[in-house]
């Protein structure tokens, strides 16, 4: 029989845990200082506790109780009217100072009997552990505590600044049914936070690192994007999607396959963004709503570019064309991917542009994570019949023969390579390197950009 699950107060974490934390278990929430352990614990307490199923939040020696209250009140989930009604705070540290640590199981029993909580939090548990000098005492006190918490019908959380190496040494990890690890990782310019399910007895979860951010509403957790379990629908894909450029459509039979992904690679100024805008604009005018995810031009700048190309911006916006601008400095890869994924799953989006992949890659902590995420997105696009165009900026203006991001170009159904032709007059050109499932014209063509948009023509 499936164990009852306790919701965590975070929809993302519930999804990762396939519904929540199994009821009547002991969970260790571990992580270095500032990773958000207490926020997660309080978010859970305030979202789940009721007067009939109260939460008992025991603070120990890491921070005074007053600090928990002061910090907690800065988050929207902290409803002060619940304190003393459904969420009870107690300073366990003060009680232990008076009665001694050896009495911990007895003190917890007394508190359980007095408050009859359904949720118990001990924060920080590691601070208590550190006060027990002998490892024999530690083992027996923690074993007795686990017995108390298991004997009484409650779901317990032991919170602490545990390092990974402590998992094999400390007895609380042996008694824990669930271990949630919160991690801060530094990229070259910023820090990112992740949560991982380190241990989960009698239940399944989504493995790996899941990004999260701390907002005024508490933790917002973005489950790692997985590839779809259903295969793309090939009958629906037997349909062509025009690129917005007639002469380009003709180079790849009649356009891209619906649900395919196209990589447009080239140096700055070669026409990638213009090509992408024409692709998504043509879709919107045909009643295929699209999302343009951009990192460089803000909506005002982009609207200007579109007007210069003769694209009717207002009409496009009214037809379901949406600019999803993200500052490249602030972008958080998983948050953007989650939002894009959510919109695609709603079923209204038919075309997506990601301009440019390099900005997404720079927001990722490592290349493999980035590649996995793009791959998962591409698979979802295929399943949902969303045709996608991604741009990729290359640094070399003239001698462009291949694409260094091999993984991405291998994953893409179509690859268009843009470059500059050396000469007195700077001329742009395009070549279809790859068009999976299409007979394509692989000769280099000249790109012309006028007030009426981008066209490709034979090189004279």
């Amino acid at each position, binding site marked *: 029989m499936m164990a009852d699950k306790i919701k965590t107060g975070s929809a993302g974490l519930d999804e990762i845990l396939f519904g929540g934390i199994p009821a009547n278990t002991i969970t260790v929430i571990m992580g270095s200082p500032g990773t958000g352990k207490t926020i997660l614990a309080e978010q859970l307490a305030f979202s789940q506790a009721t007067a009939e199923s109260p939460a008992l939040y025991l603070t120990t020696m890491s921070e*005074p*109780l*007053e600090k928990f*209250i*002061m910090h907690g*009140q800065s988050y929207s989930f902290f409803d*002060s*009217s619940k*304190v*003393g009604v459904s969420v009870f*705070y*107690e*300073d366990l540290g*003060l009680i232990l100072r008076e009665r001694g640590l050896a009495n911990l199981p007895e003190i917890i029993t007394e508190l359980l009997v007095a408050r009859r909580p359904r949720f118990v939090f001990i924060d920080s548990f590691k601070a208590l552990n550190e006060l027990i000098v002998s490892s024999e005492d530690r083992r027996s006190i923690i074993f007795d505590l686990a017995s108390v918490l298991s004997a009484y019908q409650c779901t317990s959380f032991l919170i602490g600044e545990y390092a990974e190496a402590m998992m094999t040494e400390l007895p609380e990890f042996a008694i824990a049914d669930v271990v949630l690890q919160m991690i801060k990782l530094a990229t070259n310019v910023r820090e990112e936070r992740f949560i991982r399910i380190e241990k989960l007895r009698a239940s399944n979860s989504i493995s790996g690192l899941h990004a999260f951010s701390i907002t005024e509403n508490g933790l917002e957790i973005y489950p790692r994007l997985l590839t779809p379990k259903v295969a793309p629908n090939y009958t629906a894909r037997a349909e062509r999607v025009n690129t917005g450029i007639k002469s380009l459509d003709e180079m790849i039979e009649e356009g891209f396959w619906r649900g395919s992904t196209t990589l447009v690679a080239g140096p700055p100024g070669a026409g990638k963004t213009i090509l992408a805008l024409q692709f998504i604009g043509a879709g919107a005018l045909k009643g295929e709503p699209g999302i343009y995810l951009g990192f460089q031009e803000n909506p005002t700048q982009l609207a200007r570019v579109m007007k210069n190309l003769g694209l009717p911006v207002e009409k496009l916006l009214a037809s379901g064309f949406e600019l999803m601008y993200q500052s490249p400095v602030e972008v958080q890869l998983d948050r953007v991917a989650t939002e894009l994924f959510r919109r695609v799953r709603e079923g209204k989006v038919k075309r997506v542009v990601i301009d440019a992949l390099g900005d997404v890659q720079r927001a990722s902590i490592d290349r493999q994570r980035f590649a996995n995420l793009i791959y998962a997105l591409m698979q979802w696009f295929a399943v949902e019949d969303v045709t996608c165009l991604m741009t990729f900026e290359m640094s070399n203006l003239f001698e462009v023969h291949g694409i260094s991001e091999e993984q991405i170009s291998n994953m893409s159904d179509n690859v268009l390579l843009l470059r500059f032709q050396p000469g007195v007059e700077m001329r742009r050109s395009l070549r279809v390197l790859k068009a999976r499932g299409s007979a394509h014209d692989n000769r280099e063509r000249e790109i012309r950009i006028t007030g009426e948009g981008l066209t490709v023509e034979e090189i004279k």
Partner: protein
Amino acid sequence: MASDKRALILVVERNPIVQRLEKYFLEQAGYTVEFAADGEAALAQARELRPGILVTEILVPKLDGLSLCHALKSDEKTRDIRVLVFSHLHAEDRAREAGADAFLVKPLDEERLIDTVAALVSAAANGEGEKHDGR
């Protein structure tokens, strides 16, 4: 303004460091201070000592500060005791509902605490029933 500088103040506070600070400031202001570390002890002491003012944190063991306030205000023998709820928890509305005469949010600010206590002592001396907003 007539204020009884020797008024007895019963402070209900669990944290010994906060107790020490409150004792220092209140005694310096001329009041006599007694302490209780939990709500139940405070209720018993209030019945016995009949302090002019009771200052209570909400987050105290056994009987929380709001329940203590409600109990004092529901009992004819203790309802005249002026109650100041002094807490880290932003719970002014709940304090009023429990019958508190004033509410202050922590951390401790000497001037605000002493001014509020003085206003409560003065109101008690004048027999005023009006509630004082300590903020």
